[in-house]
Protein backbone atom coordinates (compact mmCIF):
# COMPACT_ATOMS: atom_id res chain seq x y z
CA UNK A 1 0.00 0.00 0.00
CA UNK A 2 2.77 2.40 0.98
CA UNK A 3 4.80 1.47 -2.12
CA UNK A 4 1.82 2.14 -4.38
CA UNK A 5 1.19 5.42 -2.53
CA UNK A 6 4.75 6.51 -3.31
CA UNK A 7 3.98 6.29 -7.05
CA UNK A 8 1.29 8.95 -6.87
CA UNK A 9 2.48 11.18 -4.01
CA UNK A 10 5.05 13.20 -6.06
CA UNK A 11 2.39 14.17 -8.60
CA UNK A 12 0.10 15.39 -5.83
CA UNK A 13 3.00 17.28 -4.24
CA UNK A 14 3.97 18.95 -7.49
CA UNK A 15 0.40 19.87 -8.45
CA UNK A 16 -0.22 21.41 -5.04
CA UNK A 17 3.00 23.42 -5.20
CA UNK A 18 2.20 24.41 -8.77
CA UNK A 19 -1.24 25.57 -7.70
CA UNK A 20 0.32 27.99 -5.22
CA UNK A 21 3.16 29.15 -7.49
CA UNK A 22 2.03 28.60 -11.10
CA UNK A 23 4.29 31.36 -12.40
CA UNK A 24 7.59 29.86 -11.24
CA UNK A 25 6.96 26.11 -11.39
CA UNK A 26 7.73 24.13 -14.48
CA UNK A 27 5.86 22.53 -16.15
CA UNK A 28 2.82 24.39 -14.91
CA UNK A 29 -0.88 23.59 -15.05
CA UNK A 30 -1.56 27.29 -14.55
CA UNK A 31 -4.21 26.92 -11.81
CA UNK A 32 -6.38 24.86 -14.15
CA UNK A 33 -8.63 22.86 -11.81
CA UNK A 34 -9.94 20.61 -14.58
CA UNK A 35 -6.42 19.61 -15.57
CA UNK A 36 -5.58 19.00 -11.91
CA UNK A 37 -8.70 16.87 -11.50
CA UNK A 38 -7.97 14.76 -14.60
CA UNK A 39 -4.32 14.25 -13.59
CA UNK A 40 -5.36 13.37 -10.04
CA UNK A 41 -7.81 10.80 -11.42
CA UNK A 42 -5.04 9.40 -13.60
CA UNK A 43 -2.74 9.11 -10.60
CA UNK A 44 -5.50 7.38 -8.63
CA UNK A 45 -5.54 4.61 -11.20
CA UNK A 46 -2.35 2.79 -10.04
CA UNK A 47 -3.91 2.40 -6.58
CA UNK A 48 -6.97 0.72 -8.06
CA UNK A 49 -5.01 -1.18 -10.66
CA UNK A 50 -2.34 -2.58 -8.34
CA UNK A 51 -4.46 -3.12 -5.22
CA UNK A 52 -7.11 -5.81 -5.41
CA UNK A 53 -9.05 -4.81 -2.30
CA UNK A 54 -11.13 -1.69 -2.82
CA UNK A 55 -10.95 -0.59 0.82
CA UNK A 56 -7.14 -0.77 0.74
CA UNK A 57 -7.09 1.12 -2.55
CA UNK A 58 -9.18 3.90 -1.00
CA UNK A 59 -6.88 4.05 2.03
CA UNK A 60 -3.96 4.22 -0.43
CA UNK A 61 -5.55 7.29 -2.04
CA UNK A 62 -5.86 9.03 1.31
CA UNK A 63 -2.29 8.00 2.16
CA UNK A 64 -0.72 9.31 -1.06
CA UNK A 65 -2.71 12.56 -0.92
CA UNK A 66 -1.48 13.02 2.65
CA UNK A 67 2.16 12.25 1.75
CA UNK A 68 1.97 14.47 -1.34
CA UNK A 69 0.50 17.33 0.65
CA UNK A 70 3.23 17.07 3.29
CA UNK A 71 5.86 17.03 0.51
CA UNK A 72 4.32 20.14 -1.05
CA UNK A 73 4.42 21.94 2.32
CA UNK A 74 8.11 21.03 2.58
CA UNK A 75 8.72 22.35 -0.96
CA UNK A 76 6.74 25.49 -0.09
CA UNK A 77 8.91 25.99 2.99
CA UNK A 78 12.22 25.16 1.29
CA UNK A 79 13.69 28.68 1.60
CA UNK A 80 13.00 28.65 5.33
CA UNK A 81 13.76 25.02 6.13
CA UNK A 82 16.98 24.58 4.17
CA UNK A 83 18.22 28.13 3.63
CA UNK A 84 18.67 31.16 5.84
CA UNK A 85 15.48 32.98 4.94
CA UNK A 86 13.30 34.13 7.79
CA UNK A 87 9.52 33.90 7.88
CA UNK A 88 8.00 37.03 9.37
CA UNK A 89 4.61 35.52 10.30
CA UNK A 90 4.95 31.69 10.33
CA UNK A 91 1.29 31.07 11.23
CA UNK A 92 0.03 33.29 8.45
CA UNK A 93 2.48 31.72 6.05
CA UNK A 94 1.15 28.21 6.62
CA UNK A 95 -2.46 29.40 6.80
CA UNK A 96 -2.03 31.06 3.44
CA UNK A 97 -0.93 27.74 1.94
CA UNK A 98 -3.83 25.83 3.52
CA UNK A 99 -6.27 28.49 2.41
CA UNK A 100 -5.02 28.35 -1.17
CA UNK A 101 -5.04 24.56 -1.43
CA UNK A 102 -7.88 23.22 0.72
CA UNK A 103 -10.30 22.89 -2.21
CA UNK A 104 -7.56 21.28 -4.25
CA UNK A 105 -6.96 18.79 -1.45
CA UNK A 106 -10.59 17.66 -1.54
CA UNK A 107 -10.44 17.51 -5.30
CA UNK A 108 -7.41 15.21 -5.16
CA UNK A 109 -9.17 12.80 -2.80
CA UNK A 110 -12.33 12.77 -4.89
CA UNK A 111 -10.45 12.37 -8.15
CA UNK A 112 -8.33 9.66 -6.52
CA UNK A 113 -11.44 7.65 -5.65
CA UNK A 114 -12.65 7.93 -9.24
CA UNK A 115 -9.16 6.88 -10.38
CA UNK A 116 -9.35 3.84 -8.08
CA UNK A 117 -12.64 2.76 -9.69
CA UNK A 118 -11.19 3.23 -13.17
CA UNK A 119 -8.01 1.37 -12.21
CA UNK A 120 -9.96 -1.57 -10.83
CA UNK A 121 -12.19 -1.70 -13.90
CA UNK A 122 -9.06 -1.71 -16.04
CA UNK A 123 -7.48 -4.47 -13.98
CA UNK A 124 -10.64 -6.60 -14.18
CA UNK A 125 -10.84 -6.02 -17.90
CA UNK A 126 -7.23 -7.17 -18.34
CA UNK A 127 -7.81 -10.21 -16.17
CA UNK A 128 -10.89 -11.19 -18.17
CA UNK A 129 -8.90 -10.85 -21.37
CA UNK A 130 -5.99 -12.90 -19.96
CA UNK A 131 -8.43 -15.60 -18.81
CA UNK A 132 -10.21 -15.76 -22.14
CA UNK A 133 -6.87 -15.89 -23.98
CA UNK A 134 -5.53 -18.69 -21.79
CA UNK A 135 -8.73 -20.69 -22.32
CA UNK A 136 -8.60 -20.16 -26.08
CA UNK A 137 -4.93 -21.28 -26.05
CA UNK A 138 -5.98 -24.40 -24.13
CA UNK A 139 -8.46 -25.40 -26.84
CA UNK A 140 -5.88 -25.19 -29.61
Amino acid sequence: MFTVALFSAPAIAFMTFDFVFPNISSPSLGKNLLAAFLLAALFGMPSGYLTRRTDLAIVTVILYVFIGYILSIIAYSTPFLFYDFRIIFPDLYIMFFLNMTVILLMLFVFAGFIGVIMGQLLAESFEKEETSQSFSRGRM
Partner: protein
Amino acid sequence: MGVMAELRKRWFVSMLSIAAAIFFTVALIVSANTYVNVMDANASVVLMNAIEGAEMLDNGSILVTIQIQLDNPSDLDLSISTVSWTVAIWNYTDGVNIIPVTSAYNGTGDGLTVKKKSVETFTYQVIVSDSTRLANIDGFINYSMTQGQDYTLETVPYVHDFRVTGWIADYPHDYQTYRETYLNDMARIDLSYRDGEYL
Protein backbone atom coordinates in the same frame (compact mmCIF):
# COMPACT_ATOMS: atom_id res chain seq x y z
CA MET B 1 -0.27 -12.07 -3.76
CA GLY B 2 2.03 -9.44 -2.26
CA VAL B 3 2.41 -5.95 -3.62
CA MET B 4 5.86 -6.61 -5.06
CA ALA B 5 4.60 -9.71 -6.87
CA GLU B 6 1.69 -7.66 -8.18
CA LEU B 7 4.12 -4.95 -9.34
CA ARG B 8 6.28 -7.55 -11.12
CA LYS B 9 3.28 -9.13 -12.74
CA ARG B 10 1.97 -5.79 -13.93
CA TRP B 11 5.36 -4.43 -14.81
CA PHE B 12 4.25 -2.12 -17.62
CA VAL B 13 1.89 -0.04 -15.48
CA SER B 14 4.39 -0.20 -12.62
CA MET B 15 7.16 1.17 -14.84
CA LEU B 16 4.88 3.94 -16.11
CA SER B 17 3.95 4.86 -12.54
CA ILE B 18 7.58 4.90 -11.43
CA ALA B 19 8.57 7.04 -14.44
CA ALA B 20 5.77 9.51 -13.65
CA ALA B 21 6.78 9.58 -9.99
CA ILE B 22 10.39 10.36 -10.94
CA PHE B 23 9.27 13.04 -13.40
CA PHE B 24 7.11 14.83 -10.84
CA THR B 25 9.75 14.50 -8.14
CA VAL B 26 12.30 16.21 -10.41
CA ALA B 27 9.74 18.87 -11.39
CA LEU B 28 9.01 19.54 -7.71
CA ILE B 29 12.71 19.87 -6.86
CA VAL B 30 13.37 22.17 -9.84
CA SER B 31 10.35 24.33 -8.98
CA ALA B 32 11.30 24.54 -5.30
CA ASN B 33 14.82 25.54 -6.35
CA THR B 34 13.36 28.27 -8.57
CA TYR B 35 11.33 29.44 -5.60
CA VAL B 36 14.50 29.69 -3.52
CA ASN B 37 16.22 31.66 -6.30
CA VAL B 38 13.29 34.07 -6.54
CA MET B 39 13.30 34.57 -2.77
CA ASP B 40 17.03 35.12 -2.92
CA ALA B 41 16.65 37.72 -5.67
CA ASN B 42 13.92 39.44 -3.66
CA ALA B 43 16.19 39.65 -0.64
CA SER B 44 19.55 40.37 -2.24
CA VAL B 45 18.92 42.85 -5.05
CA VAL B 46 19.77 46.31 -3.73
CA LEU B 47 20.47 49.86 -4.79
CA MET B 48 23.81 51.17 -3.59
CA ASN B 49 26.59 53.74 -4.00
CA ALA B 50 24.41 56.71 -4.87
CA ILE B 51 26.36 59.81 -5.85
CA GLU B 52 24.37 63.01 -6.13
CA GLY B 53 25.68 66.19 -7.71
CA ALA B 54 24.71 69.73 -8.58
CA GLU B 55 27.03 71.94 -10.57
CA MET B 56 26.51 75.51 -11.66
CA LEU B 57 27.26 76.19 -15.31
CA ASP B 58 28.66 79.37 -16.81
CA ASN B 59 25.30 80.37 -18.29
CA GLY B 60 23.58 80.27 -14.89
CA SER B 61 21.92 76.88 -15.38
CA ILE B 62 22.49 73.95 -13.04
CA LEU B 63 23.67 70.49 -14.01
CA VAL B 64 21.94 68.03 -11.66
CA THR B 65 23.23 64.46 -11.67
CA ILE B 66 22.76 61.17 -9.93
CA GLN B 67 24.74 58.00 -10.30
CA ILE B 68 23.46 54.89 -8.56
CA GLN B 69 24.14 51.19 -8.84
CA LEU B 70 21.76 48.27 -8.89
CA ASP B 71 23.46 45.18 -7.53
CA ASN B 72 22.00 41.84 -8.64
CA PRO B 73 23.95 39.06 -6.90
CA SER B 74 21.17 36.51 -7.49
CA ASP B 75 21.11 33.69 -10.05
CA LEU B 76 18.29 35.28 -12.06
CA ASP B 77 18.21 38.14 -14.56
CA LEU B 78 16.09 41.19 -13.85
CA SER B 79 13.87 42.79 -16.48
CA ILE B 80 13.70 46.43 -15.61
CA SER B 81 10.22 47.80 -15.92
CA THR B 82 10.49 51.45 -14.91
CA VAL B 83 13.23 53.78 -13.76
CA SER B 84 12.24 57.15 -12.42
CA TRP B 85 14.22 59.96 -10.91
CA THR B 86 12.92 63.18 -9.47
CA VAL B 87 14.78 66.00 -7.82
CA ALA B 88 13.04 68.54 -5.64
CA ILE B 89 13.66 70.91 -2.78
CA TRP B 90 11.55 70.33 0.29
CA ASN B 91 10.66 73.49 2.14
CA TYR B 92 9.20 72.70 5.56
CA THR B 93 8.63 76.22 6.78
CA ASP B 94 4.89 76.28 6.11
CA GLY B 95 3.69 72.70 5.88
CA VAL B 96 5.56 70.90 3.13
CA ASN B 97 6.24 72.97 0.09
CA ILE B 98 7.89 70.94 -2.67
CA ILE B 99 9.84 72.88 -5.25
CA PRO B 100 10.34 70.64 -8.30
CA VAL B 101 13.75 70.81 -9.92
CA THR B 102 13.78 68.07 -12.53
CA SER B 103 12.63 64.54 -13.29
CA ALA B 104 13.26 61.70 -15.70
CA TYR B 105 11.42 58.49 -16.48
CA ASN B 106 12.17 55.38 -18.47
CA GLY B 107 9.45 52.83 -19.18
CA THR B 108 9.18 49.20 -20.17
CA GLY B 109 9.84 49.85 -23.85
CA ASP B 110 13.52 50.35 -23.18
CA GLY B 111 14.01 46.61 -22.61
CA LEU B 112 16.74 47.04 -20.02
CA THR B 113 17.93 43.82 -18.39
CA VAL B 114 20.27 43.45 -15.44
CA LYS B 115 22.11 40.17 -15.83
CA LYS B 116 22.52 37.77 -12.95
CA LYS B 117 25.50 38.38 -10.68
CA SER B 118 26.16 41.81 -12.14
CA VAL B 119 26.02 45.45 -11.17
CA GLU B 120 24.26 47.99 -13.37
CA THR B 121 25.08 51.67 -13.03
CA PHE B 122 22.36 54.22 -13.74
CA THR B 123 23.45 57.76 -14.48
CA TYR B 124 21.06 60.63 -15.02
CA GLN B 125 22.16 64.15 -15.90
CA VAL B 126 19.83 67.07 -16.48
CA ILE B 127 20.60 70.72 -17.15
CA VAL B 128 18.00 72.86 -15.44
CA SER B 129 17.76 76.09 -17.41
CA ASP B 130 14.08 76.88 -17.12
CA SER B 131 13.88 80.41 -15.76
CA THR B 132 10.79 79.74 -13.62
CA ARG B 133 12.42 76.81 -11.91
CA LEU B 134 15.66 78.65 -11.37
CA ALA B 135 13.69 81.58 -9.96
CA ASN B 136 11.93 79.21 -7.53
CA ILE B 137 15.26 77.83 -6.39
CA ASP B 138 16.66 81.34 -6.02
CA GLY B 139 13.58 82.22 -3.99
CA PHE B 140 14.27 79.31 -1.67
CA ILE B 141 17.91 80.38 -1.33
CA ASN B 142 16.90 83.94 -0.53
CA TYR B 143 14.30 82.80 1.98
CA SER B 144 16.80 80.44 3.62
CA MET B 145 19.22 83.33 3.96
CA THR B 146 16.68 85.17 6.10
CA GLN B 147 16.52 82.07 8.30
CA GLY B 148 20.29 81.97 8.70
CA GLN B 149 21.02 79.30 6.10
CA ASP B 150 23.58 80.18 3.47
CA TYR B 151 22.90 78.13 0.34
CA THR B 152 24.09 78.44 -3.24
CA LEU B 153 22.61 76.73 -6.31
CA GLU B 154 25.16 73.95 -5.79
CA THR B 155 24.63 73.46 -2.08
CA VAL B 156 20.85 73.62 -1.88
CA PRO B 157 19.58 70.40 -0.19
CA TYR B 158 18.20 68.74 -3.30
CA VAL B 159 16.15 65.68 -2.47
CA HIS B 160 16.84 62.95 -5.02
CA ASP B 161 14.15 60.31 -5.34
CA PHE B 162 15.27 57.40 -7.48
CA ARG B 163 13.03 54.39 -7.99
CA VAL B 164 13.50 51.26 -10.05
CA THR B 165 10.93 48.52 -10.58
CA GLY B 166 11.29 45.30 -12.49
CA TRP B 167 10.48 41.63 -12.77
CA ILE B 168 12.61 38.75 -11.64
CA ALA B 169 13.49 36.64 -14.69
CA ASP B 170 10.32 37.95 -16.34
CA TYR B 171 8.20 35.26 -14.71
CA PRO B 172 4.47 35.66 -15.48
CA HIS B 173 3.18 38.62 -13.48
CA ASP B 174 -0.12 39.67 -15.04
CA TYR B 175 -2.41 38.08 -12.49
CA GLN B 176 -5.46 40.25 -11.91
CA THR B 177 -7.63 38.59 -9.28
CA TYR B 178 -7.28 39.44 -5.62
CA ARG B 179 -6.27 35.88 -4.69
CA GLU B 180 -3.49 35.82 -7.25
CA THR B 181 -1.81 39.19 -6.93
CA TYR B 182 0.75 37.72 -4.50
CA LEU B 183 2.26 36.05 -7.57
CA ASN B 184 2.95 39.46 -9.10
CA ASP B 185 4.45 40.71 -5.85
CA MET B 186 6.67 37.66 -5.55
CA ALA B 187 8.30 38.21 -8.94
CA ARG B 188 8.54 41.98 -8.53
CA ILE B 189 11.38 44.17 -7.34
CA ASP B 190 10.65 47.70 -6.24
CA LEU B 191 13.61 49.61 -4.87
CA SER B 192 13.94 53.24 -3.96
CA TYR B 193 16.57 55.67 -2.92
CA ARG B 194 15.22 58.79 -1.29
CA ASP B 195 17.03 61.59 0.43
CA GLY B 196 20.08 59.52 1.24
CA GLU B 197 18.18 56.41 2.34
CA TYR B 198 17.83 53.12 0.52
CA LEU B 199 14.27 51.85 0.86
